[in-house]
């Protein structure tokens, strides 16, 4: 593995995004606009906005990075550039780390924008620090990137890759406890939710928003997020084959 190659990959993905200002603007602005929408949706119930706002703020980057990564890597697979890179002196880890670096940077920008708007303008109030919410948002974004990288191996077209969002992430979003507390779901759904990564991403955010600190349970949540990220990256690396039929 080489730092030079890792940075080259990160710089290249950044350059690709720079040539696509509309995508860049959508990435940065949409979460902030959705939070604004939420704020006025809960106009009469500011407490509900506080309860839902922080977890959503921390989950947006996961969703957008999942989409951006799965499409970027799918393109790399279908245009032949991945095959070219794999015939060059480059470690798969360089590729993954380069993507990780670049999308972590994007996620930081996105989390910063949505946090600034939510905490600064919309009056979002959490028990814990806004910085901790932001940091969790970045960790979640990297999880989203890792999941996107992994599922891109199962998509042959961009249509399919986009469908993985409702097929793969939406059920997790429904079950994570954001809409209905997990204790109130049918037992089987609660049990399923315990096995899904988004549940832990939501949990950590909810703890910071409601309790003000991560605590022991929150540390476990973060550990699950990091472990799932590593697992998804490992599985994703296994789908980057140097030899194909």
């Amino acid at each position: 593995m080489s730092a030079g190659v890792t940075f080259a990959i990160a710089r290249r993905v950044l350059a690709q995004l720079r040539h696509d200002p509309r995508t860049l603007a959508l990435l940065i602005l949409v979460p902030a606009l959705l939070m604004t929408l939420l704020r006025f949706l809960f106009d009469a119930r500011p407490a509900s906005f506080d309860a839902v706002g922080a977890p959503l703020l921390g989950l947006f980057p996961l969703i957008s990075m999942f989409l951006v990564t799965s499409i970027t890597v799918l393109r790399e697979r279908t245009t032949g550039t991945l095959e070219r890179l794999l015939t060059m002196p480059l470690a798969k880890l360089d590729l993954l780390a380069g993507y990780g670096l670049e999308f972590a940077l994007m996620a930081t920008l996105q989390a910063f924008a949505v946090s600034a708007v939510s905490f600064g303008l919309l009056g979002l109030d959490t028990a814990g620090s806004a910085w901790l919410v932001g940091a969790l948002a970045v960790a979640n974004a990297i999880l989203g990137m890792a999941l996107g990288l992994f599922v891109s191996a199962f998509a042959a077209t961009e249509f399919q890759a986009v469908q993985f969002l409702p097929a793969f992430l939406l059920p997790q979003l429904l079950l994570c406890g954001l809409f209905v507390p997990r204790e109130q779901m049918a037992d089987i759904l609660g049990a399923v939710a315990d096995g899904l990564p988004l549940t832990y991403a939501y949990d950590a955010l909810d703890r910071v928003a409601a309790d003000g600190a991560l605590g022991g349970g929150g540390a476990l949540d973060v550990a699950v997020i990091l472990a799932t990220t590593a697992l998804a990256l490992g599985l994703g690396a296994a789908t980057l084959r140097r030899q194909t039929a």
Partner: protein
Amino acid sequence: MVAIEIRDLVVKRGGRTVVEVPQFAVEAGRVTGLMGSSGSGKTTLMRAIVGVQRIEGGAADVLGQPAGTASLRRRIGYMTQAPSVYGDLTVRENLGFFAAVLGIPSARIDAVLEAVRVPDRRRQLVRDLSGGERTRVSLAAVLLGRPELLILDEPTVGLDPLLRVELWRLFGQLAAAGTTLLISSHSLEEARHCDELVLLREGRILVSDSPEGLRERTRLDDLEDAFVAIITEREGVPA
């Protein structure tokens, strides 16, 4: 000296044998043309040499090492048939990226752009270039690292005749400087630019000879006629 040596290579796809080559060698420092119609197995054979093709049996030795060995990646330049460059980057950004991956100074970019005759339009994205220009950017990327062995899959397809001649001249210069080139083409009229010719048909090598050897063997001056004569002779079908 032999740059590529293949023994008993078999590649199957979907249970069907797509390439079967008992013996094949490419001389170092020469331009070897891999001729054959589309679907004859040229790309598959090239992929097996580069080491990205899953093979059923046999072996390919490249520059003295088994195909696919990690240390070969710096010594081989493989240009795929589809221009595998980033459409949403400029020419210079593309080459800058590949140069960075290879760890070579970006000063080399100007030299390869000059060699493949791609004008450096500063802000234009590669997706807005013509197909031929994209192919040449892809070729430029392969040349960046000065590899000892170039495997080029249809590098001249769709180019205007003048450019095509210029590229073949470039290939000749590279070979004169010691580079080994294996170049595929489905257009038999390009055969005259090669030092050695290999005709692939339905995954098998029908003939492997120099242009002069082919002309002598068939007593035909035109290489295309010579190929047709050989195919007819082997397969017993009138031309």
